[in-house]
């Protein structure tokens, strides 16, 4: 191993996965070598910008790349979406957080929601490679926000699709109750919006299925300094960045997390609006 001669992390491919959902593959050999499913990176694109955490959604240690997906919802992600293939990211920090526990559990239910379908695919892939029998569920608000159905099907012949509005697949996640009644799963991993992860945990709990979730609360530094990402796990304060991001979903205080996620909503909206206006 030697230190990279260059400090730049180059975008080697850019794709649009779904409506306003972008995918970057970044050449960053040293970080790629260390990255594992469940971990994340922090990114800042300019001195005036925010630092944002992004869950790693693809790792190719041979090619020396990692990938991540992001949803263009706020100023930072919209601006990020303007970057092109060939552009360089100067400040990419990682891999951060602890790797997910990946081993042969047996039968796995892997649920991904929204933009987090991307890292859920990486989880499914890792579990598949570890010898698990993977059942995948991908969900989104509506049809045009769905992606990776085909990719999931390469790992499993049991891929379920759900949308909140029923525009594709099942309407809502209620169908899972029947599935859980019909089949026995050894473990469930849920990656997605907090409300979705909460819903999944509520569904699996009565069946006693060990369920883990990947939490990505608001973070400023991403390595233990700010404490903004603190969550209550079984009544104890944990930092998602250094103690997580994977936690036992049945122990998470989701309502508190939902409240904390909303802390800066007005400011986020203002930023986004001003950015749109400045065109």
């Amino acid at each position, binding site marked *: *191993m*030697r*230190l990279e001669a260059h*400090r730049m992390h180059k975008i080697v491919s850019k794709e649009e996965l779904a409506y306003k959902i972008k995918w970057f593959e970044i050449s960053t050999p*040293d*970080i790629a070598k*260390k990255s594992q499913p469940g971990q994340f990176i*922090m990114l*800042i694109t300019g*001195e*005036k*910008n*925010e*630092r944002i955490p992004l869950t790693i959604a693809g790792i190719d240690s041979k090619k020396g790349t990692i990938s991540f997906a992001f949803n263009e919802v706020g*100023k*930072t992600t919209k601006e990020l979406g303007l970057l092109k293939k060939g552009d360089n990211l*100067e*400040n*990419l*920090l*990682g*891999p*951060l957080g602890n790797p997910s526990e990946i081993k042969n559990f047996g039968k796995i239910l892997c649920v991904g929601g929204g933009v987090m379908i991307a890292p859920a695919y990486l989880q499914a892939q890792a579990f598949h490679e570890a010898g698990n029998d993977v059942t995948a569920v991908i969900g989104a608000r509506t049809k045009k926000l769905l992606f990776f159905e085909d990719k999931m099907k390469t790992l499993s012949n049991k891929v379920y699709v759900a949308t909140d509005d029923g525009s594709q697949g099942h309407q809502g996640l209620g169908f899972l109750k029947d599935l859980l009644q019909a089949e026995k799963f050894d473990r469930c991993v849920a990656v997605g919006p907090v409300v979705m992860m909460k819903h999944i945990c509520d569904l699996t709990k009565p069946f006693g299925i060990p369920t883990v979730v990947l939490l990505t609360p608001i973070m*400023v*530094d991403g*390595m*233990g*300094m*700010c*404490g*903004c990402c*603190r*969550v*209550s796990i079984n009544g104890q*304060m944990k930092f998602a960045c*250094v103690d997580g991001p994977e936690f036992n979903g049945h122990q998470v*205080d989701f*309502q*508190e997390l939902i*409240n*904390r996620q*909303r*802390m*800066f909503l007005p*400011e*986020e909206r*203002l*930023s986004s609006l*001003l950015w749109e206006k400045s065109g």
Partner: protein
Amino acid sequence: MPKQKPEVRRHNFNEVATGYNEEQALAEAARCLQCPQPKCVDGCPVEIEIPVFIKLLKEKKYDEGIRKIKEKNSLPAVCGRVCPQEDQCQKNCVMGKAGEPVSIGRLERFLADCERSNGSQAPDKASPTGKKVGVIGAGPAGLTVAADLVKLGHEVVLFEALHLPGGVLVYGIPEFRLPKSIVRGEAEYVKKLGVDMRLSCLVGRTYTIPELLKTGFDAIFIGSGAGLPQFMGVPGENLGGIYSANEFLIRVNLMRSYDFPEYDTPIRIGKHVAVIGGGNVAMDSARSALRLGAEEVCIVYRRSREELPAREEEIANAEEEGILCKFLAAPVRFIGDEKGCVKAMECICMELGPPDESGRRRPCVVKGSEFVMDVDTVIVAIGRTPNPIIQRTTEGLETTKWGTIVTKDESGKTSLEGVYAGGDVVTGEATVISAMGVGKKAARAIHEYLMNKSN
């Protein structure tokens, strides 16, 4: 020392103390008696030859003066501002026996600021030794070690996890006490000396210390600081509107949220702010909150004014600006509104018992003395502990139960060969200058180690 007036400065983030002009600096320097056996130098953790630089200042040889300081201290503009001189060099000053000691810190700052406006020059470097050192953390300790070692001819790579260098100088100490342009200038100087600075690179994750040692680094210095915030562990601490002082200051200082929305990172400040704790970080948080537009900012401290650990000058500044203090009280729980944001804080009164192991009188709960304060923002400033990432990823590195790294002697030698540590990661939260002092000693020890090490 000229300062912005309290009623003006409480509304802006500009530097409070505006610094000496030439005339004032010369007048102050003239007070130095040039003692043949100067006591002030004994009080300086980095051994600056104080009377010599003051003499040069007197003679208006400003360039030579700053070069004299920089022989020992690579960050004079910082130290001139944030060192607790009253407890160090100035405490020993003979002039202080019968009046005011010479304002050594302000003179140091004057010379550093002169140089900054005229442009600095890097000194000559020793010839290359062919040895390579990795320094982890670009805070006060790391910058000192890096500068000292590169001047001795070693190749130095400085790893910094954040996107800007400076450590606590850039994320912790507010603009109004230490302008970030000054920190940037000092870091630029260290770069100019030839240090290879790697920002956004987290040792412990991207590379581990054993890997660095295996791949060409002859020695490592760990100066990763005390960056992990502590909380009180009382109910309701995760409500919205409650920040660790670290989060609050990182947002305000590093991310410049006081310039939101020009800068993207927001901060929410309410009308009634409580700051828990009594150290410099608590003062910095309270004064920042005031500048962000809070109507009322109250420091809640469990001991009395006499035990406040903050620097007297900063306490006075805070009081002048209208910061309130509630002494002998501590929060027992936080009360939230329907949205999960804090709306009140229940406290309990304390009284002081006999001294504890820190030598300060121990606060004891007064039973049945609970009272409620209406607050919409709370900043918890009760201390920081070392970040655990390096400790968790470096096998064989001995640590204490508090997570600090164990060092064998003053040089910062750790349980691993060729690995040294210093600053807050060893001592727990302390001062900028003490970290720099340790950095100096470690640099000397590392140099010795490298020169004795066979290839």
